[in-house]
């Protein structure tokens, strides 16, 4: 009993030893060429194709089976580590995360720290930074501006998130399906898209908001309403991208293998569009905020509580444009809107970098040197200045 157990152990050991011997040299050569350039031994082995101890190249199979851990590792590499290493070196990303993080904290924690304001809470029109009971000053009603700004953040954030999600979901669906399927499906979906592109967005939303007043008083429905005018542009842009992808060899291969259309769309085409979609989602969020605040300012959207747009309108109505003592009332919501927009723009720009294949290759551990193209900056300079 004990003996046999030893036997199996032995055989196991020898077996694993074999396999290690079989693939270790090849692996070393791989890492050798990528990390350090001058490694003579490794290049020698590599020139032999990395299969020096095999008799026939035809018997060679993948030396390592991809385990679950490898897959997780690859996933982490692709979606977490590489983006992180790019973002870490990009000040725009850091600033963007800082700005958006501050807004998020204000919207979640800040709401509990700053108590809601009410009319006649303080004296009328205290200026900003004059009185530490009201750091950002008060309105003509004596309402605290800091508190109003903080308490409108969650609504705006929810509206932004739901609007952006809706825009991207509908836009991607219409764009991908229309671009890939072609024919009748394309005609129908594209016609719908074109009608929505042709209808000017803000007027449509104003008409809908006026007529649906009773139905749209929570931030999620408001976000979706604002997105009604925004998805079509994305759909058209995505469709034109899909038109170039649909004839690529990997898509044709999948089609030749008789994969279901849904599978091709989700597994083959969508991953190639992800960078584009993510960047557009960030831009959509900015547009939603801009139009939401504009509509609040115009007094078109129904509102139950203060928010940046309503503050803007109240300040405007109180003559903040020509009264110096009310100036802070107008500037605070303006800065709040521009600040979050700035965060979103910087995020979009840095994400653009994350998805740029040239920059990606530079930051990726896996993959060979030959994948690296020369730096675009020096190249273009050479070209234009010679």
């Amino acid at each position, binding site marked *: 009993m004990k003996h046999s157990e030893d036997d199996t152990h032995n055989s196991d050991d020898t077996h694993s030893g074999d396999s290690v011997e079989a693939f270790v040299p090849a692996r070393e050569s791989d890492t050798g060429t990528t990390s350090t350039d001058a490694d003579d031994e490794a290049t020698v082995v590599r020139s032999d194709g990395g299969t020096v101890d095999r008799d026939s190249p035809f018997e060679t199979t993948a030396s390592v089976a991809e385990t679950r851990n490898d897959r997780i590792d690859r996933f982490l590499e692709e979606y977490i580590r590489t983006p992180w290493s790019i973002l870490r070196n990009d000040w725009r990303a850091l600033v963007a995360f800082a700005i958006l993080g501050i807004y998020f904290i204000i919207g979640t924690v800040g709401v509990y720290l700053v108590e809601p304001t009410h009319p006649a809470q303080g004296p009328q029109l205290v200026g900003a930074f004059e009185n530490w009971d009201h750091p950002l000053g008060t309105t003509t009603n004596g309402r605290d501006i800091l508190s109003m700004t903080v308490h409108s953040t969650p609504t705006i954030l929810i509206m932004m998130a739901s609007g952006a999600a809706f825009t991207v979901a509908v836009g991607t669906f219409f764009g991908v399906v229309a671009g890939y399927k072609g024919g009748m499906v394309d005609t129908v979906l594209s016609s719908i898209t074109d009608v929505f592109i042709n209808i000017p967005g*803000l007027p449509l939303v104003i008409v809908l908001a006026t007529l649906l007043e009773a139905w749209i008083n929570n931030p999620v429905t408001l976000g979706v309403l604002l997105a009604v005018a925004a998805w079509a542009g994305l759909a058209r842009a995505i469709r034109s991208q899909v038109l170039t992808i649909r004839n690529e060899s990997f898509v044709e291969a999948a089609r030749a293998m008789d994969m279901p259309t849904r599978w091709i769309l989700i597994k083959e085409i969508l991953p190639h569009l992800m960078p584009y979609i993510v960047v557009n989602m960030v831009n959509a969020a900015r547009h939603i905020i801009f139009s939401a605040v504009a509509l609040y300012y115009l007094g078109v959207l129904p509102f139950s509580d203060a928010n940046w747009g309503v503050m803007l309108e109240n300040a405007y109505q109180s003559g903040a444009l020509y009264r110096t003592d009310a100036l802070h009332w107008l500037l605070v919501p303006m800065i709040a809107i521009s600040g979050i927009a700035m965060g979103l723009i910087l995020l979009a720009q840095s994400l653009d970098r994350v998805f740029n294949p040239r920059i990606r290759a530079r930051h990726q551990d896996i993959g060979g040197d030959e994948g690296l193209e020369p730096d675009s900056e020096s190249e273009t300079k050479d070209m234009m200045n010679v």
Partner: protein
Amino acid sequence: MNWKIRRLGQGLFTIWAVMTLAFVLTRMMPGNPVDAFVAQIGPELDNPQEAYELAEIYMNINPEAPMHIAYIDYMTAMLQGDMGYSMSQNATVTSIMADAIPWTLFVMSWAIFIGFVVGISLGALMAYWEGSKFDVAFTGYATVLTSIPFYVLALLLLMTFAYRLNWFPTGGRRPTGVEAGFNLPFMLGIIHHAALPVFSMFVASGAASLTMRGNSVRVLGEDYLRVARLRGLPDSTIAVRYVARNAILPMYTGLMIAIGTMFGGAIVLEEIFSYRGMGYYMIQAVRARDYPLMMGAFTVITIAVVIALLIADLTYGKIDPRAGGEDREAF
């Protein structure tokens, strides 16, 4: 040719869809404007039945008629240019709109034109000197500009240049006390009034320049530029024919969307500057719940956008021969 006809049909389809939408919304919404109008005005009349006739005069919709007949009546009236009667402005919607359209077109076309010309030139220069101080400075400037909504810039401009410095009028669209017509003071007065609204749209140039910069940088990395240089083509030819042209093409979709949003943006802008264009009347109508005027303004703005996009689309074929003609296999 076939494609142009299809594109024209598409424009007409959109206009029809919007008119139908306007009808459906005014007629079938819960608490619909027509019923509300009848309920509101009916009791004040000697003969409550007259309320229905008035509804037809104001909104072109007879609430008593069956839906399909009401729809046909409504569409017939619209096609004849009769958009109903405005309750708040006490004039026909058609005459109000006819008066407002040129002003909005004037302001918006200049805003779009200046925004894109400035944006494209800036973006091209930024890409040309990529990585230089000029590029870094102006990328930062464009980023800041893009994160400011145009209405915030409009309010700031109005505050500074109109209320504080008195350089520009605080509202209105034409000088007072000057005889209207083709005389110099009147023309200058119009430009004076339009300057701030047009300049507010300057923020669009920020977004355009960033897009243009990105596109140009991408084009600058292409092989055909290297070939062009090897062929010994002069710099100016390369810059205009190869770089600019190929970098502007992808911005076309952006321009299309910009036209749509800018006409929408005209509403906010005209409201801020009290510039009596289509958008200004639309907001007045929304505030007064003047549905005929609101729907009329919506329809007119849509038609303006459809025509603008149609022109953009048809001229685009001249810039890019690849546009149009889509014969693709369907899966």
